[in-house]
């Protein structure tokens, strides 16, 4: 305790005093001082140190921060928000099949959910820390205390504010002096010289920064609404123009100048010989076969397979019942397409009396508007469809004699 600090404190107007400052040389002394000030019942005071001092929180009586709860809430809302928007965009706003997955495929949404959880939590943590600490603080009365500069190096300080209800210039000064500070307890005056007005340079600087930040967005917006005759700008020319021959291009190296080379005449890939006329083309000795090839087993299983394939490839046009009233036909009719030809009714006589080999060829090569399906359906499945088609035709043209005896009696 020194006389000078007291006399200074007393001689000034009370409202001009910001508080009393004490300086310590070690963190242990700071903690000891903090304990005494807390016990004395002060509430508006703080300690300052160059690094985090373990144990200062309980010594000062600082309650645990609520920041973790704020961060937890932010993380939860980030996660649920991310999930919600992915659900909404992919099932409500713009349903779109990706890779054959369901519209709402949670595994695909997890990375974004995870990232947004972390992002919301981290940003909230950063902003929450600043706000709870009332930062940034452009100026403080302590800035004008010369020796306070060492708080960033090797000194520890305590400041009791004059606004504390228990503050009394003499008693508070005595209390601080009794905690063993280095040098005198210093009175910190309110800053009356600094202005509250933000300097012009700062305002203009911020304005320029904000305007500059708008430039890329303005250019992008301009590009979206204007046209340009110049060729596209290539950011990665190596990728856009690769040194290789693409299909259907010229290559001067070869005599015929084709970049795509033909197979050597007579080449047959492994398993592609297809010399079984019956199985692959539905023909026996040059005419359409009336029987199924021996590879096709006439069984419930083949029938089920045929029904399944028929459902996938045939029903869109021919309809489930084969009457030629499928969804594609109905849609084409509703659009009143003049060129549309109705798909054949599979039950018409011409088709019922066709041989299985001919039906097989129809599926393979197509009929009128109908394209060939040889590329999409393998031969065994085409035969299975023919088998199912025979059963379907039979179902629409059955006579009483076709029914099992028990059922027939029931009808008679």
């Amino acid at each position, binding site marked *: 305790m020194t006389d000078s600090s007291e006399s200074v404190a007393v001689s000034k107007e009370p409202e001009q005093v910001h508080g009393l400052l004490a300086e310590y040389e070690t963190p242990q002394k700071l903690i000891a001082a903090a304990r005494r000030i807390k016990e004395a019942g002060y509430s508006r005071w703080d300690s300052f140190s160059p690094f985090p001092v373990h*144990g200062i929180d309980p010594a000062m009586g600082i309650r645990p921060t609520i920041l973790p709860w704020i961060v937890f809430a932010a993380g939860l809302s980030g996660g649920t928000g991310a999930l919600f928007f992915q659900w909404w965009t992919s099932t409500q706003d713009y349903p779109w099949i990706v890779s054959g997955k369901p519209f709402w495929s949670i595994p695909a949404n997890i990375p974004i959910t995870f990232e947004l959880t972390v992002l919301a939590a981290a940003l909230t943590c950063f902003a929450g820390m600043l706000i709870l600490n009332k930062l940034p603080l452009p100026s403080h009365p302590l800035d004008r205390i010369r020796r306070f500069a060492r708080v960033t190096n090797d000194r520890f300080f305590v400041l009791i504010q004059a606004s504390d209800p228990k503050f009394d210039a003499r008693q508070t000064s005595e209390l601080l002096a009794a905690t063993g500070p280095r040098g005198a307890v210093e009175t910190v005056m309110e800053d009356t010289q600094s202005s509250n007005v933000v300097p012009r340079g700062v305002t203009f600087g911020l304005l320029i920064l904000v305007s500059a930040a708008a430039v890329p967005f303005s250019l992008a917006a301009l590009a979206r609404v204007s046209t340009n005759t110049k060729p596209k700008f290539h950011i990665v020319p190596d990728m856009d123009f690769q040194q290789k021959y693409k299909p259907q291009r010229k290559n001067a190296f070869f005599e015929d100048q084709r970049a795509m080379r033909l197979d050597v005449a007579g080449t047959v890939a492994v398993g592609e010989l297809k010399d079984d006329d019956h199985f692959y083309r539905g023909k026996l000795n040059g005419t359409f076969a009336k029987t199924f090839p021996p590879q096709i087993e006439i069984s419930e299983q083949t029938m089920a397979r045929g029904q399944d394939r028929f459902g996938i490839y045939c029903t869109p046009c021919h309809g489930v019942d084969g009457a030629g009233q499928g969804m594609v036909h109905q849609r084409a009719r509703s659009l009143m397409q003049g060129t549309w030809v109705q798909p054949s009714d599979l039950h018409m006589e011409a088709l019922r009396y066709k041989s299985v080999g001919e039906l097989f060829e129809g599926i393979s090569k197509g009929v009128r508007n109908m394209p060939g399906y040889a590329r999409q359906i393998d031969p065994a499945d085409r035969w299975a469809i023919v088998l199912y088609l025979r059963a379907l035709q039979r179902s629409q043209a059955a006579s009483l004699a076709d029914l099992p005896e028990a059922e027939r009696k029931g009808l008679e």
Partner: protein
Amino acid sequence: MSHPEEARLDDAITLDADSGGLFRSLLIVGVGSLSGAVLLGMNDLAKLQRAYLVAFMYVLSIALGALWFVTIQHLTNAKWSVVVRRVAEIMASNMWLVALLSLGVVGPMLLGSTDLYVWLDHARVEQDHVLHHKSAYLNIQFFIVRWVLYFGFWIWLGRRFFRLSVQQDRDGGSEISTTLRRISAPSMIVFALTLTFCAIDLVMSLDALWFSTMFGVYYFAGCVLAGYSTLGLFLMWIQSKGRLTTSVNSEHYHDIGKMMFAFTVFWAYIAFSQFMLIWYADVPEETHWYHWRFEGSWKVVSALLLVAHFAVPFFGLMSRHVKRNKRSLAFWAVWILVIHYVDLFWLVYPNGSGEVPLSAVDILCWLGVLGLFGAVSVRRAQKINLIPTGDPRLADSLAFENA
């Protein structure tokens, strides 16, 4: 910063005779359970081998978790962990026992059993193009070479950390700390490689046609979780005997809890990354592995892992109060150790049948290897200091505080 009044080492830092009871009961549990498992499993050797493989991978994961813990503490020159490091050193130094236990897996392979590993079956390998292609790596001779390398390295590293640390108790000084820090850096690289390939050899190759580049790190995540959980429980048991009661406090438990929390997330991150890549690409060579785990009763186990290996402990371990309280931390450590067993069971067993064949043989194998490992660890803890008193960073560790 330190609080001089709190930085105090316990007077009693050795267990002496106080651990005899636990040692004997663990030994009885170990020998008894293993004998019971063999007796019960005699009539189905394929089942017994699988049950034993799960149990073995479990005890290996604890030992590897402890070894990793010691290595990374030295590597990072960690101060907080000095007071808890000796317990991990004890567990890591028992790698010889784990190597001995591994004979239960490797023995049948040497005797010609192909129950577990299809790549040991010459006829199958000759027939299957992919297996034949892989046989340059997956063959018994090369496997034995790798197995010797894995365990040779782990035994050497565990013993080196333990021996030099105990020697430092007597000699003091910082030279030994420097030596250990020097060997920890290259050892960490070798550790990562050996653990990865061991997990591939012993577990991933059960389904020799399947492959995942994340498999090693998935097993590693489980190792670290099991290591920290066991470390925490071991320390609590020691404290229940009146030792280390002032040296090890809630600050150290808090850090152990943080690592359990972090690696719960890490495990989920790795598990999901492995799953999502395979789910998204949807290539049959890869998806069948998950398909088997989503079939029948395995679906429930998979869902259980998602909930009980990640979601529940994630929220459970989040609060600092939970991590600083011994009882709640013990609860979560036990929880993690149980669900870690389910995780390994889920890795080893599914074969496409959809059945979850958990039986008494599995539990007995598990208790058996755990009993033996526990007994040997308790035995080793009996005679030596439970804290590395010669470590120059001891004072910092005693005075450690979470900010």
